[in-house]
């Protein structure tokens, strides 16, 4: 995988704690806020099916899985940067950062567009 994404490629994130973020059946934008310097960690779909990607996410993180598409991020003005992790402590070939979430409107757009998987 390289740093190119199909428009409909999905980016998965676990919503944790699962009892904190759900409002009327959808996650609130707070679940998509992180320090600007960190970027928001996700797992890119890559060549996997949605089910495989969700199963992989749940193999290392609990909580509900949600996802947005690359196109959702572009529309919200969010940069998508493929950044695989391979260290003794952590190994995730799908790790991808959503960067440039500077405004509340961007976080809310992701919350409104995200697909809920479980």
């Amino acid at each position: 995988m390289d740093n190119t994404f199909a428009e409909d490629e999905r980016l998965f994130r676990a919503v944790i704690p699962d009892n904190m973020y759900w409002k009327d059946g959808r996650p609130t934008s707070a679940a998509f806020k992180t320090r600007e310097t960190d970027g928001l960690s996700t797992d890119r779909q890559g060549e996997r099916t949605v089910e495989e990607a969700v199963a992989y996410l749940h193999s290392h993180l609990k909580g509900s899985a949600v996802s947005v598409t690359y196109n959702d991020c572009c529309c919200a003005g969010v940069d998508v940067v493929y950044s695989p992790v391979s260290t003794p402590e952590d190994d995730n070939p799908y790790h991808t950062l959503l960067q440039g979430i500077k405004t509340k409107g961007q976080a809310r757009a992701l919350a409104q567009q995200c697909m809920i998987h479980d």
Partner: protein
Amino acid sequence: MKSRWREQWQQKRSKSESWDNMSATAYLFCSADAYQHHLPAYTASSPAGTKYVHVNKAGEEYLPVRKLINLVKIAEIERMGDNWNGYGAEPLPHDVIRRAEEFVLRLPEDAFVSPTARDSIQIEFEKRNGDYFEIELFTDHFSVYVVRGDHESEHDYPYEELHIKRLTEEVEGFCG
């Protein structure tokens, strides 16, 4: 003393089969000293029966149950340790926790409270028509984001009484 209202709340919850059974008109009665523990500045500067504490016909003080739910949630947020979101988030600063308690008590009860991974707590209100009012509490300031129809705005404010009071009025107006 801090745990008294929490214990009362848990007792109340245990009597209900589900959260749905707790109607908006169901209230939990709390003792005044519980408030004093949480809000010494307010209770010291204002007499009993302020707008933050409701009083029923029998003269008993109580909190609307939704505010109490949010205070319990904030207490849970305060207990969250390292890596609470699975992505390396750090515990939230204590002063942000205290601000969240303060704002929940001062603002209308329909607030939805949630933590963020950027050392802040978010309080939001939303109408059925999509209009949205969000307050994000940081250590040294709070940020307000409002969406009304196609118009949206975002502004930062210091924690000064003038701004907090104005915010409270705006949210009360928003919630109608």
